[in-house]
């Protein structure tokens, strides 16, 4: 421990810290410009000078880098220190008049005007070197450094050319205290921080605001450590030491009793229906994109805007896009009607647009759904019954200019109508997940015709599959909305627990067995068994079947030349008897 006197107060601090840190512990504020806790002290701006009084007189030392020593006596705001500090700030005011921190410090120290010549009134750079040190020590790219000397000293890339070393991490702009470095003009790339359009944003961030779990992740492309091996500030700063850059993805093999498949659905890709113009016409968006737009953490902050940034005056919602359609999916996706009603309600609430809803049948099957539909009717949403044939931007009359025209046959009044709107929302249906057939292969379950997983029995075993211990939940089994999915998930969990709760495991009744006397040890059966249930015993010279593994398919029995292998309940004799039984008159 070190004893020293600061501004008249004797204090004790641990060894190896600087005067600045000791002062901070005593809440004594010493101004700094070129100091940053994460970097080695550079002691260039000389604004943090304090007076250090010792036996042989007093001298000014920079508090940011001078270490505390026993018996030191420091005056942070003595006349001598203040005089030099004021002079330095006044000089900086002349050198970089537009630098805000300098202006603030000048006000604090009571300097109205600088007596020195101002070279460039909007100069912001105070040559503190924070950017250079960040680039070199923290990022390790060393793309920029100081050039020239004295009055011509400046920060730049070698020869002023674009440097390959620069990895566009914008650490320099981040550390620059005066905003002298703006990202745009540093390397001409526009930087946008948003989930949809990923510019080089901070490397460690929460994916989206409602992410579950709300835990930041490290984006390896943007993270400097994975590029230069340096930085790792996040792990220095994290008190919980929760960050380990060396962690790798690892595959964990789990022995489980049962598996619940909930692999979800894929939203129908509307570009398969060219008539609706998705991807071709502006402002034709899918339901998921509208959901994203309306969300508070969206790039527009929840406001519903057209691609040109204005608010739509009229919106059309088209149901059954890719569902109840022979050319695409015959089944009804069950959820589109209700979420379309939700969209209509949100549009009514957030914008003053008039809303058109094109449906075939309004399927409000759930609890309280119908009442919600009636509310919508009263709110003034215009419902038109008919399947929309086309969305086009070919205007035929004045008020259709610049609008999307929806052509639909209104079956209730028997007329083909043209409705001009600003924005079209396609209520896209649900399809089996992109990898659902691989999953089916892996888990040995089969799919129904529409590609969703097949349950063992629609009524008796709706959540289990043909393979024992594998259960289904959610939209992977068939389109359903959240309440149904939750209910089904509960059921699947119960089934799994019921299986596990028994505590014993009933073996397959119909397994094969090998008669030791008859078996000649020819091992034909060993290679045959897909479940490797048969092993050859060298001492006895015969093959044996492991009851727990044997599934009872009987393939080995039919292949056994000596008939040593027999399948319980399907012994050869029994089947022979069955065959003979057929021909008894």
């Amino acid at each position, binding site marked *: 421990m070190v004893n020293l006197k600061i501004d008249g107060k004797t204090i004790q601090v641990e060894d190896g810290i600087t005067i600045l840190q000791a002062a901070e512990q005593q809440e004594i504020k010493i101004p700094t410009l070129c100091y940053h806790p994460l970097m080695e*002290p*550079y*002691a*260039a*701006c*000389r*604004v943090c*000078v304090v007076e250090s009084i010792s036996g042989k007189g007093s*001298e*000014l030392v*920079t508090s940011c*880098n*001078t*270490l505390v020593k026993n018996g030191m006596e420091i005056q942070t705001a003595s006349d*001598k220190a203040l*005089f*030099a*500090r004021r*002079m*330095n700030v006044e*000089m*900086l005011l*002349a*050198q970089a008049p537009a630098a805000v921190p300098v202006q603030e410090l000048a006000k604090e120290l009571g300097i109205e005007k600088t*007596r*020195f*010549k101002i070279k460039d009134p909007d100069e912001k750079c*105070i*040559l503190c*070197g924070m950017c250079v040190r960040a680039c070199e020590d923290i990022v390790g790219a060393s793309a920029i*450094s*100081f050039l*020239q*000397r*004295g*009055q*011509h*000293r400046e920060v730049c890339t070698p020869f002023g050319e674009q440097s390959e070393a620069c990895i566009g991490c914008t650490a320099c702009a981040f550390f620059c205290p005066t905003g002298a470095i703006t990202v745009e003009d540093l390397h001409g790339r526009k930087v946008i921080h948003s989930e949809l359009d990923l510019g080089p944003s901070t490397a460690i961030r929460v994916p989206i605001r409602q992410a579950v779990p709300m835990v930041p992740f490290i984006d390896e492309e943007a993270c400097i450590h994975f590029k230069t091996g340096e930085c790792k500030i996040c792990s220095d700063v994290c008190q919980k030491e929760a960050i380990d850059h060396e962690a790798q993805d690892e595959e964990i093999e789990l022995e489980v009793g049962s598996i619940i498949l909930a692999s979800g659905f894929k939203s129908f890709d509307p570009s398969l229906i060219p008539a609706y113009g998705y991807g071709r016409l502006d402002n034709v968006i899918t339901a998921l994109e509208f959901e994203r737009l309306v969300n508070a953490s969206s790039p527009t902050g929840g406001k519903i805007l057209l691609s040109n940034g204005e608010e739509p005056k009229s919106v059309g919602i088209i149901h059954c896009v890719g569902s109840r359609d022979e050319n695409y999916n015959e089944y009804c996706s069950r959820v589109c009607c209700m979420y379309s009603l939700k969209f209509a309600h949100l549009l009514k609430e957030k914008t003053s647009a008039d809303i058109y809803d094109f449906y075939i049948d309004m399927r409000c099957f759930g609890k309280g759904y119908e009442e919600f539909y009636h509310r919508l009717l009263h709110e003034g949403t215009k419902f038109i019954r008919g399947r929309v044939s086309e969305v086009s931007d070919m205007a035929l009359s004045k008020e259709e200019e610049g609008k999307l025209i929806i052509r639909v046959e209104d079956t209730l009044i028997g007329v083909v109508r043209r409705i001009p709107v600003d924005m079209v929302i396609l209520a896209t249906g649900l399809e089996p997940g992109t990898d659902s057939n691989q999953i089916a292969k892996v888990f040995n379950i089969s799919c129904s015709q529409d590609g969703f997983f097949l349950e063992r029995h629609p009524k008796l075993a709706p959540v289990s599959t043909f393979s024992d211990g594998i259960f289904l939940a959610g939209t992977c089994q068939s389109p359903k909305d959240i309440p149904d999915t939750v209910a089904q998930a509960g059921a699947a969990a119960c089934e799994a627990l019921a299986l596990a709760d028994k505590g014993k495991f009933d073996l397959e009744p119909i397994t094969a067995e090998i008669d030791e006397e008859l078996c000649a040890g020819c091992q034909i059966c060993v290679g045959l068994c897909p479940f490797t249930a048969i092993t050859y015993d060298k001492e006895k010279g015969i093959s044996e079947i492991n009851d727990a593994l044997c599934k009872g398919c009987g393939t080995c029995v039919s292949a056994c030349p000596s008939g040593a292998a027999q399948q319980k309940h399907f012994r050869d004799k029994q089947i022979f008897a069955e065959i003979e039984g057929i021909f008894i008159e």
Partner: protein
Amino acid sequence: MAKIKKEKEYRVHLMVCAGTACVSNHSFEIKEALETEIKKQDLDNEVLIVTTGCNGFCERGPLLVVQPGNIFYQTLTTKDIPHLVEEHFLKGRPVEKLMYIPPEEKTPIPVLSDIDFFKKQVLIALRNRGLIDPEKIDEYIARDGYKAMAKALTSMSPSDIRSEIQKSGLRGRGGGGFPTGLKWEFVSNAVSSNGNVKYLVCNGDEGDPGAFMDRSILEADPHSVIEGMVIGAKAINATQGYAYVRNEYPLALNRLYKALDDAREYGLLGKNILGSGMDFDIKIVRGAGAFICGEETALLSSIEGRLGEPKPRPPYPAEKGLWGCPTLINNVETWANIAPIINRGAKWYSHIGTETSKGTKVFSLVGKINNTGLVEVPMGITLREIIYDIGGGIPGGREFKAVQTGGPSGGCIPKEKIDLPIDYESLSDAGSMMGSGGMVVMDEDTCMVDVARYFLSFTQDESCGKCTPCREGTKAMLDILTRITKGEGTDEDLTLLEELAVSIKDSALCGLGKTAPNPVLTTMKYFRSEYEAHIRDKKCPAHTCRDLNVYTIDEDICVNTGHGCDLCRRNCASDAILGERNQPHQIIQDKCTKCGVCYDVCKFGAVKVD
């Protein structure tokens, strides 16, 4: 036992000075002329021509010293050579007209050691000056070269060496005056962060304008520096040495390269030196011409290949220097003093000099002085002795005004302090500093404000620009001084100048910044009247600041003595002078650009400057 080839016997050695100053004064042509003449007189197996390093008396170059007999010839031209060879070398009669005649005296002084310039000098760092051929290692060895190293390596332990240096009282000759022994102690005690790697550096950057001590030492006696460094390496068991020499010293660099190669060839450097098991080698790093790289931490950054920019201290280089390992940095002159101390003992050395400053100091005596040159004088010698006895007084009988010591970081010492004994403390008490040894003598015609401006323009241009006070402060002071020399200065400028000087001196990061205000502070302290003259009466007493001069023509002198010779009018570039032959001439003030040509041209002194 190595078979050393027999040296041819000669009876006369011609020591031709080949320091940079003499070389630029065509001393190599003198040498060629000598060679041809001697061949003509077929004296070539009796007379040997030796080119030596700088002899010191640069004012009178090109120089020749004839040995034996120590006869000193100066300001030689190729035309004098035939007569000289025949007269002196053939017939043995020294030629008086080529000898040195002190100013205002008639009788020539043949023997070098009788000349005042040399008489009061005590040569330690320059002990072999003019006596050996710097490119022949054998001649260095003949004058007890490497004897000290042999003694240190074989019979002295590192602590013996260090205590010997401590006892000698030797202090750093680079300018700081830090006790060398103490510094060596720090470095040898420091623990290296990388195995036992320790570095040893010779600072030959010598950026001060007008300073050429290190250059002369390297040119005259490179081996003395090498021997010093090897002894130093043993004292702190350093593993690698660096000699940082300015790229602007090509001759010194060549001689040092040659000396290093010869030393390695003789096994006095490199692996297993003199069979003592010690390995040490020296690499030369050439400075890129930045004055700041004379500052120790900036020098180290430069060796490391990084931007030459000082680092805050502590940690001092002794603990964490080159690549973070303990590094011993000393100036060329300091290293040159090591071998004599080891050879002749600390007691002998501590007898020379004053109580606090031991040994001698090499000064480069320049400016308004008759005997411009390199002088090595014992500490404690007075300014008067240097200027008048050694320096031969002020040329043109003008009056001595001040002397500027320590280069741009030093200050000006007025004539009132002429009897000031020269040592570290006395100079810093007077507001200046020892510095590397530059000594610029100024006479009454020097304007002190302009001197301050000149030195400020130098430090401002050479400031590395890292810390605010030095980067911006020196520029601000320079602006003010320039305004004052143009006659636009105000009283507030004076107070601002003083404030700036104090705040820069207090808060700058490195030596350059801390000492840059010295010229201003000392000139304001001792010559405040000149500042006031510039500001209040808009006059420059020394007439150096041209914008303040007012040229007038004394009409009766012009007519009566000069008969209106019209020379001034014809030479006036901006035709600001009226008048014809035999008529009094006049100067039109607002047209006059104050270039001073008329003043120089007028043979009758009719043009007056006020």
